[in-house]
Every structure is written in C-alpha cells, then in structure tokens.
C-alpha cells in the first residue's frame, strides 16, 4: 500500500537526532519505522508514524524542515527469495527503486519493507496484482487507521 513517510532534515552534529526524537516524545508519537541516511554535513531522517499530517505539522512547528513523501509499503514472508519475487515484478516493469528499508512485523513470519520508487502507483499495482486499487490506504469509514498495519 502507499503510505506517507515523513522526511526530516537533520544537521550532522551531535544531538540533532535526539532533538527530533525529543519532539516526538513530547507529543507521545510512536514511530513505526525509521531510517537515517547521512552525508558528511547532514542527514535525512525518514520515519513512518500514525497520522503523518499531524506529525508533520508538529515537527514544522518545532522548527524542522519536513516533507511528506509517498512510499510503498509491502509485506514480505519469511522465506528465501520472498523479497526477490516482489522486487522482480518491479524491475521487470522498469520501476526504479530509489531506497529501501525494512523492519520487523509483529508476526514472526513476515517483515515490512518500505520502498521509495519512481513510479509509485504502478509499483503498487504490480505488487498487489493489476486489479488492486492504487489509492492511499483508508479504512471502510474513509479515515486513516490507527496503525498502518
């Protein structure tokens, strides 16, 4: 499914990551996933949270530069070649993966994988089978669920 990931600009100096985490803590926001890409001067912190819009607003208010980026989240079963099977569909269709990070699922058999791809809706259709819709995830009442999974 397509979800909104938040990317936060963090300077590469001691304490900047803790500053972001401190803001999230103060607002009792739980991160579902996190990845940090860094260079010599700066890093980009990517996080998955509930209610990304609200969290974006909070972080902005605290003085951070934040961007919401749609990414593809997929479930991968715990057996050899499982991720390959999924990604192979994308590569066969010419979809480019810009970055990937993975984190554990609640169950012991599955892992969650976040992919930033250049053609999001196509990638989602490929993963789910052509018949699936490519709208951002909503529950039956049309609102974002408590948790993404």
């Amino acid at each position, binding site marked *: 499914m397509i979800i909104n*990931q938040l990317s936060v*600009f963090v*300077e590469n100096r001691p304490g900047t990551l803790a500053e972001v985490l401190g803001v999230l803590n103060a607002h009792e926001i739980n991160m579902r996933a996190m990845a940090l890409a860094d*260079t010599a*001067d700066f890093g980009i912190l990517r996080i998955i949270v509930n209610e990304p819009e609200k969290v974006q607003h909070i972080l*902005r208010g605290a*003085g*951070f530069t934040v961007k919401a980026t749609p990414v593809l989240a997929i479930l991968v079963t715990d057996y050899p070649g499982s991720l390959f099977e999924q990604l192979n569909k994308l590569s066969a269709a010419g979809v480019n993966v810009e970055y990937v990070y993975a984190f554990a699922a609640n169950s012991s058999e599955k892992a969650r994988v976040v992919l*930033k791809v250049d053609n999001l809706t196509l990638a989602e259709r490929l993963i789910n089978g052509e018949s699936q819709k490519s709208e951002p995830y909503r529950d039956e009442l049309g609102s974002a669920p408590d948790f993404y999974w």
Partner: protein
Amino acid sequence: MNTYWNKPAETMEREEMTSLQTGRLKEIVDRLYRQQPFYRSKMQAEGLLPEDVATLEDIRKLPFTTKQDMRDNYPYGLFAVPMSEIVRIHASSGTTGRPTVVGYTKRDIGIWSEVAARSLVAAGLSRQSCIQVAYGYGLFTGGLGIHYGAELLGASVIPISSGNTARQIMLMKDFGTTALACTPSYALYLAETMREMGIDPRETSLKVGVFGAEPWSERMRQEIESQLGIRAIDIYGLSEIIGPGVAIECCVQDGLHISEDHFYPEIINPVTGEVLPDGEKGELVITTLTKEGMPMIRYRTRDLTVLHREKCACGRTLVRMSKVLGRSDDMLIIRGVNVFPSQVESVLLSIGETSPHYQLIVDRKDNLDHLTVLVEITEAMFSDEVRGLEHLEGKIKAELASVLNVSATVRLVGPKTIERSEGKAKRVIDNRKI
C-alpha cells in the same frame, strides 16, 4: 507618478546646480578654515588656503576625511559650532571601535527632515500614508530620520522602532499601515514571521517599503516585493553625512537620486584615492554643502557604487547612484580574491530555491583561506533524497565558484540556525588570525 516634495531643487538644471554647489562649497571651506581646528590643520598640512577652492573640480585638492578621523577626535572634535548650537547628538551604527559621534544644529535637523521628506515622496508616500518606522530610534539615525521626514510630509507615523516582531505585525494589521521603513533583511524576517503566524503577508494594506542601512541586491528586492506584495524602495544615508535621506530611489527604481544641493558626491578608486569618471564603480565620497553642526569634507563612505547623470524618467535631474554594491571595508580577501557578501546573496537568490538567510565563515588552515557558506534549508529546497540535496549543494558551489572566482564549501544547515538580527544582518564571520 511625477510628484516631488521640492520640485525646484529636485529638477534643477545642471548649470544652476553646479553654480549652487560651487557657492556652497566655497562658503563651507572658508568657514571651516576659519573656525574648525581639525579641518584648518588638514588644509594647512596640504598648503591650502580657502581661495584655492574656487571651482567644484578644486575639491580634489582637499584631503579625505575618514571614520578614523572621527575616532581620533572622539567625541566632539569635528563639531564646527559651539555646543550651545548643537540640538541633537547621534552616533554611528558602526560596530567596530569607538562610536562615531555626530552633532546637528536646529537648521541641520531641518535640512535632514527636508531630504527625508523628499525621499518619502519619491518613494510614493503622501500625506495619506501611514508609515510604520521599524528602524531603531535612539543614537542610530534610522528611526528619527525617517520619523522627522514623515512628520514634515504630514504622513501618519507609527514610531514603533525596531524589534518585537509579533507586535510589529499586529499593529501593521490593526492600524492599516501602508508604508514600512526598516532594514531589508528585517522586512524578509517580518514576512517569514507573518507566514508562521498564519497571516498572508500579501494581504496587509502595505503598499511600499523604504529599506536601507545595509546593502541589498536586486534579487533581494524581487524577493521582498513578491513576498510582501509591495514596492521596495532603496533609501541611502549615513549618520556621518546626515542619516537616511541622502539619496532615494524614485518610482523608476533605477538608481538613487542624491540630494546633491546638500551633499556633493564623488566616486574614487578605494585603493589609490583617484577620482573616477561617472559610470565607473568605486567608493562614494561625500562633502556636505550645507551642514552646520558637523560638516564633512570628502568623507569616505566605504560604500561602493556608480554615479549616473543620464536623465531619469521620473523627471528628477539629481545625479543617481546605483544600489550600493558592497563595502570597500566589508570586502573579504580570500586567497587574494575580493569577495563581497552581496555576491553570495545574489547567487543564492538566483538559484531560486533558497531563502536569503546565509552566512560566510572564513578560516585559515595551513596558511590557506577557506570560505564556508552556510545556507539555511527551506521546505522548497528540501528533497527527500540525499542526492537531491547533494545536487543542490553542488549547484550552489558551482555558481559561487563562477561568480566569486574562489571555491567555497557549501553547507546546508537547519532552518533558523543562523542568528536572526532585527537590525543589520551579520553576514560574515572572519576567524582568520592575521
């Protein structure tokens, strides 16, 4: 919109202006020689008598006056009238060394109000305007200079002074301010704060801004005009000469008209002191033709500009100076190359994605100068991808290298990490111990 405050003075024929200036120059040189020990001894050292200055060109025989002369004669050594005649004392906003003190007679204050009123009218203000003066009041000349000019004009003045940004915005909204006077960097800070407060800066009743006290680029003007939805007018002045109102942009926005019936301008080569012809870039030197309290003979302003005398579409015949291009003393020499903060600013603004909050840091490592340019990241420039941000850094670096002819390290920093100033922006930190 050809309106003038003092049409005869502002549209005087060249010949008439030259004769007026010559008469006033002779008068002031004569008076200073007779009454002012500092100028007399300077003239005597050059073997000059007052009658040696008979034409405007003869002004070149007179030595320059510098900020150092003011420091050496601190506090009142350059005053040319008894203290009983002095009705106001200001001190320069200069931040290095002793303050430079200036004194005004009652007539000086009148002239200052007159040139400030001319300036405001040229900027498009009228009796109907409501001007918020957000320059500092006090020893700094910005606040009171504009204030007196606006009062003489008959506009409504909100003398709020500098600082307290949230209150500035509240009054601007509630009082229906139509004109704003402050530093250009503060104008952008106000716009930024308005947006944070959920106010669209374009929806205020502001029509015009009169911005000065620091050099700013054409790009920065475009930025201010689009962010605030106003016309941004450059005003020039310095306390040593009189304060704001020495020169002003008209509605044509192509150079600042100098009130040359009061202030005689020259452009010199800042290194050799040689006088340069019109159209050539150099340091502005001003002689006050009418000031009583503390006249200035050939004062080296350290501001770099160009003089133009072609006819202006606004109808004013007063000589125009280009927007100040930098400071001859603000200039950094990095590995032998002259670098001005204003060049960095125009590069950042031409890239289009950056806010003008930046800082230059110069260090010397192993006897080699290193220039680092800190650039605050904005939402518009922020990319989710590392290579996107690296590309942006590379782009800024390449542009800077081509404009400055010196390579700089570009470092993107978080928003609001560069110190904000409510007065002049601190653009340069020079850590070199030379």
